């Protein structure tokens, strides 16, 4: 469809190179493909690569009063490395995300397993039902948990109304556990889909073979289903762990001082603290740590897979 748009009404002598271009376009599939991809790639480049390069540059600047000192220096990185608060914040972010990731995958696995193996009619309906809440506003889902866990929220007022507690439970809101519960709930769809896909792909005849050879249900699960669903588990873990480490809505609404994460700190640098270069540095450091953790995780699972097979 694009080759038709290249035509020009040039004079006879000039027509030759145009028609050659046309012929080239017509003959070369790859070129036509690239042409179709180019607007999307262009936007993604403008939206991802260019800003990212500028972010890296800015992370090497320093704050100078209300503006920036554009001399390149690694002072910000040294500060992040030396001041214990940054390390503590990063560790806490990874801890919270890690626990939320494990909890989500463990809780979603049986659900995905059920739909993959035990639902035979209306499978699509189940998948839609499981993923529908994910599409609704993230802010509102977090807000819903604030309503539930709040000091005078659903749980506290409900339990008090039933006479089960005298005083509201204060540990519910503004804590690490509040953040973990909310994250696990909000990201469930991200775990269910990859888990379901990897479970659904498993060749059922393998399970029958295992039964014929004398494996019970438990042995069958651990020797066949679980190893074969490993790609889904890995994908789910990545899809939850990486975005949640940078989350700042949940900790801002539910975390309190104890549950603040690195995302809140980055946001502060661009807001109240007004130290953009430091914010840029923290963003880069966060990305590097995520990449490092992802690589180690991949390496370990690869090793484990090799040992199994």
């Amino acid at each position, binding site marked *: *469809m694009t080759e*038709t748009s290249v035509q020009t009404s040039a004079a006879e002598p000039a027509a030759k190179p145009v028609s050659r271009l046309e012929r080239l376009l017509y003959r070369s*599939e*790859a070129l*036509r*493909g690239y042409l179709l*991809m180019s607007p*999307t*790639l262009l*936007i*993604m480049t403008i*939206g*991802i690569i260019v*800003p*990212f390069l*500028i*972010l890296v540059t800015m992370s090497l600047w320093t704050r100078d009063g209300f503006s920036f000192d554009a001399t390149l220096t690694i002072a910000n990185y040294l500060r992040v490395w030396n001041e214990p608060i940054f390390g503590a914040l990063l560790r806490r972010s990874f801890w919270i995300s890690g626990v939320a990731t494990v909890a989500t995958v463990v809780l979603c696995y*049986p*659900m995905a397993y*059920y739909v993959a193996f*035990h639902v035979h009619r209306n499978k*699509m309906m189940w998948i*839609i*039902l499981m993923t*529908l*809440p994910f*599409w*609704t*506003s993230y*802010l*509102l*889902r977090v*807000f*819903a*948990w604030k*309503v*539930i866990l*709040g000091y*005078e*929220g*659903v749980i*506290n*007022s*409900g339990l008090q109304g039933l006479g089960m507690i005298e005083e509201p439970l204060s540990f519910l809101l503004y804590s690490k556990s509040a953040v973990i519960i909310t994250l696990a709930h909000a990201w469930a769809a991200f775990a269910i889909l990859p888990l379901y896909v990897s479970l659904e792909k498993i060749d*059922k005849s393998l*399970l*029958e073979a295992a039964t014929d050879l004398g494996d019970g*249900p438990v042995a069958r699960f651990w020797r066949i289903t679980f190893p074969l669903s490993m790609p889904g588990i890995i994908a789910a873990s*990545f899809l939850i762990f*990486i*975005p949640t480490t*940078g*989350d700042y*809505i949940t900790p801002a*609404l539910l975390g309190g001082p104890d549950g603040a994460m690195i*995302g809140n700190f*980055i946001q502060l640098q*661009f807001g109240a603290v007004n130290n953009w270069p430091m914010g840029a540095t923290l*963003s880069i450091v*966060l990305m590097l740590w995520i990449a490092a953790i992802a690589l180690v995780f991949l390496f370990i699972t690869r090793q484990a897979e090799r040992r199994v097979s």
Partner: protein
Amino acid sequence: MSDGTYIRRPNRPLQIYAVIFLIVLYVPVLFIPMFSFNDSIYVRFPLQGFTLQWYGELWTREPVWNALWNSVKVGLVVSVISTVLGVVAARAITRYRIPGKGTMVTFIMMPLVIPGIIFGVALLVLLSRMGVPLSLYTVGLGHLIICLPFGVATLLPRFEGFDPSMEEASADLGENGWWTFWRVTFPMVFPGVVASLLLTFTISFDEFIMAFFLTGTDPTLPMYIWGQLRFPQEFPSVLALSALILFVSFFLVFVAQRLGRAGLDNGNT
């Protein structure tokens, strides 16, 4: 295929778990509409009786309508652009042998696995360096980057799911590339196009993280809600507004999901 084997046997505990799972998934969200009808400024049990007062209050509030209109404008533009680009990209990915295809697809899907805050911050830095003032356009740019991967991901299975020989037949019968696209390809992928429009609109409409960094003076609806969360006396009307948004989002996404998979499932099984 495997009728009558143990695999078909229902598993009672797992079934109960699945039902509980769905309840836990939905109940927290359903508290929002429930308390939006509660006749009390406090969000707590016991419920005080039914009222539509909070919805009535919303009706009279000018900033809500402005924010809603802003969100709709951004959502419409973003969903149309990302769907058009998604169609073009999905077609290129499925129909042409392009070297480096895998890398490009990974690149397009990157926003799905990178913390949103990093995109927001990076775009903010770029725009401020270029001296571009923050406005609904900058929010739209941010949303476009998030929505494009979803557009492509929704449309790819539609393009993969139909037989290229249909397009070839049309070409053999004398249609040129443009008409083949409009008369054969487009009707075939049309459900995917509608699904992509609805999904990307919903994502943009609900998006908060990018908007937080890129909004100028005109807030989008989630930004407005975020601003109101600071005032406890505004809680009930925020609940009412949230309930409305949830209802519209649920509806749009439900339709989109049905359309996105319609026809594909029947063909495959």
